[in-house]
């Protein structure tokens, strides 16, 4: 353990030197290879222990300690945390490429185009052509994306959904502390601006994965349960995602179908009739969906799940009756909804 912590510190120092120090001017191919080797080592450590909160805590402390001294040594230093370790090679690369002291010979090695690509995840990976391969990959993606953009869920989102499932399965497979998995999902939501919206799409992709194993079914179940508790996320999903996706989700998961219906009804119940606009609208503080759109949601749902229609209409009817059962537009959102649905 001691050795591992020491290695972590050393690599943090290495990253600092790579990005902040003129010492890189002395680097040669061997130094470069060794640096990337250490970065890979940290990535390995990160994946090995990210589920182990005790060890993770120790490592985090070590890193904070190292950060302190590095901050003192390098004015432009940015702290590195445990979560950064999974992208250690990337951090190293960015640091190096932004360092104006990096010898051009080193850059030429990184961007070398002659060596064949080595895709194996072996311990010895040649650092030659590291960047060339990245560029090839990114460019190939751009070239192929017009062809794959036709589906609602693109290849990129599918991959993210698959990774989410993998992570959930790994967390759930550890008997202890199921709430840690919840905590993990919560933390992803708080990822930053637009993170919640993006996450909705990924959740949808994860739930729509068809070729799944038993472990993945459990992950999907957990995800649905968590969604049930997160009304804001559900609402975001229902307003932001394309209808086709929502319908697929409703068809695939009864739990989601029920939740979807509930969201639609909640939206309806929050609506007020606006005289000026001659239409039912949501309160001005939270305008995400129009009455027309709401109707479309219901209609799409009925078309794909015909069995639902009767039940929903009964519910709406009951609500309309409780509102007085008047036949006049503008008095009960339920009545107006019913007539819109039955047009």
């Amino acid at each position: 353990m001691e050795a591992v912590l020491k290695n972590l510190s050393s690599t943090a120092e290495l990253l600092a030197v790579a990005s902040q120090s003129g010492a890189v001017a002395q680097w040669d191919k061997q130094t470069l290879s060794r640096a990337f080797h250490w970065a890979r080592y940290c990535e390995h450590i990160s994946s090995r222990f990210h589920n182990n909160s005790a060890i993770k805590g120790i490592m985090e402390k070590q890193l904070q300690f190292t950060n302190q001294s590095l901050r003192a040594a390098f004015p432009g230093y940015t702290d590195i945390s445990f979560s950064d370790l999974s992208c250690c090679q990337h951090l190293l690369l960015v640091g190096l490429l932004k360092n104006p002291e990096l010898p051009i010979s080193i850059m030429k090695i990184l961007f070398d185009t002659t060596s064949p690509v080595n895709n194996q995840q072996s311990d010895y990976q040649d650092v030659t052509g590291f960047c060339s391969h990245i560029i090839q990959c990114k460019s190939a993606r751009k070239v192929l994306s017009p062809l794959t953009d036709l589906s609602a869920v693109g290849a990129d989102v599918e991959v993210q959904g698959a990774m989410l499932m993998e992570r959930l399965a790994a967390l759930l497979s550890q008997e202890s502390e199921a709430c840690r998995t919840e905590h993990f999902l919560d933390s992803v939501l708080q990822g930053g601006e637009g993170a919640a919206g993006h996450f909705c799409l990924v959740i949808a992709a994860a739930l729509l994965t068809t070729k799944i194993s038993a472990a993945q079914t459990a992950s999907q179940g957990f995800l649905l349960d968590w969604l049930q508790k997160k009304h804001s996320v559900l609402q975001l999903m229902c307003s932001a995602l394309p209808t086709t996706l929502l319908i697929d989700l409703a068809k695939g998961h009864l739990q989601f179908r029920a939740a979807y219906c509930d969201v639609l009804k909640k939206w309806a119940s929050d609506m007020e009739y606006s005289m000026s606009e001659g239409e039912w609208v949501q309160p001005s503080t939270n305008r995400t969906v129009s009455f027309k759109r709401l109707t479309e949601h219901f209609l799409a749902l009925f078309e794909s799940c015909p069995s639902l229609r009767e039940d929903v209409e009964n519910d709406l009817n009951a609500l309309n009756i409780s509102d007085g059962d008047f036949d006049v537009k503008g008095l009960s959102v339920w009545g107006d909804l019913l007539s819109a649905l039955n047009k």
Partner: protein
Amino acid sequence: MTVRLVCIRMSQLQPQNQLQQTSEPPLNVQELQFWLDKAAAWGQADSPDTRKDTCLHLSRLKDYLQLLLTHMNNMSSTTERMKTLPLLGQFLGRLCWNPYVTADATGRRLLLQCLWGLYSEHPGNALERKANQWIRKVLCQLATEEDDDAAALALMKRMGVSPKEYHLKVLKMMVALLQENIGKSCRSLVDLNQRCSCDNIRATSEACVPLVTCPEAALLIGALLQQPMTCVRAALSQDFLDALSSAYSSQCISLEEQAVVSLWYHNLSSLEDAVLSLLECVLTNTGSTPQELKQQLAQSLLPKACAQHCSIFLVANDIFRSFLKQTEGNESVKYLIQTFSSCFLRELARLQHKTSGSWKALFPQSPQSLLVPLLTRPSEMPREAWKHHLNWLSGSLQTLTEEEEEGDGDGSRSTRGHHKVFEAWFLLIQCAHWVQVAVWLLVTSDPEDCGPLLWLLTFYHHPTNRGHHRASQLVHAKEAWDHLHSLYSVSSCPLPVDRLQSLVTLLSPQPERPSLSPLFILNLLVNFAVFFQQSLSGSAEILQTVVNRSGLVNEAACVLRSLELRLNEDSCLSSDTNRVHLRINALQNTLTHMHAASDPAGNQAHAHINAQNQTAVSSSSTPPGSLQNDK
């Protein structure tokens, strides 16, 4: 079209004195403007039209980048380069953000090399310093900028997935999705009024133009090549096929065997290229052993491809035919064709296409009556029937040649007659297993039975009866056989000098008189040495003496090697074979010992033969015992 290609390639086989470019084409600044405008247009909008245009121009753009690079290397400083080509920076900058250029291996390489060309190790002025900074910045952005994927990468970081890993996974997912789409042919559509999605195939193949060297796209490319192609709209883009073909022939990529076969099937020029490359390679590399040649042919995948698709075989055969005609029966070409045919027929048998009906499709130009008799292998026939079979073959061919000669008088028929005889001879070369049996049979024949066999072999070596020399050639052939027969029958030493001398004379052709191919006689000699019932020492002495005096030591060694190879390949484990092996080894040793002390007087004959035949590897003889397993 094919014959023209053959002519072009033939001229290229000539010693390389011409075709060397002494200077590069001059740099045209307007051309740079043209390409800059193109690059700008491509970068502006991302529509199907711009994408198509990019793929269409990609190959020429790469050529232009190479030209630019050459010119840049001729200049001494960045300042000079920027002065001569002021638009260069802009141009390269735009190309950096064109994924078609950066995805393609050559495009990326050339682009990066151009960028390095603008970098100054020791910048001398502000311009050069600025250029250096710009280059570092662009490269950093290319490798690490993540604007498009910011949200995704942030999420992936929480999952413990690095950016590089993520990009790779997404690419693989895209390839898998596209592969799935290709699998769905339009035959599976339920509603025939529905438009099939086969246009995707064309668009996908076009998008793959810059990806032919991308390892992750290999499965997709393989799927594109091997899809059933039943729909009219499912045609592959020509640019794609060309790019694939050139990448494959310059060995930048390796394709799965079946993908290569499909490529040749779809793209005639790539097939022709492959056949001509093979010919070029084999015929310029005359030092290879028979074993090496066989390996080379197998590695080329052509025999396998020919066995799978009749159309591929017809094209390849056509090229061989042209070569044979052009080189006027060059021995190396003959040997190559023989070996190729034997590989091809073996592959065909493996695919179980044994019905005689298919022979006609594969050999439409050959005389139909000869097809089955020649293509049936000796191992498929009882040994006792061989002699009769060969007599029949000899007779049929004789009739054919006589018809041709009769037709010579009547102008209209003669070309057809010539054609028939040529095709018969071409087929005979391809079925040289019978020629080998004929040589073997001659060793054990009686004098009265030699006639047809000698005729067959004379025809094999001299298909045309130019100047009506065949009669005298047949006489010489009989003479040679007589000499050999009596030399080997005599068990006492010293050897009859007159016989020896006559044989040597026959083997050393004089330019003035029409001669029998020395290789014919040499082959006969070697077969006598190996198979005639004589003591090893006796046989060895005869062989040694004759070969030494006529200066054909190397050639004889070659014939022995071919014989050994045949024996190794088609070995049946009878003791007979082992004895023959030992005998061949012993004879080879004799020859090797002689090699050091070769007779300088015999070099004249040696040189003459080389001039005639370029390589001395002739058709080899096989002992019949080994042909039993010849499948």
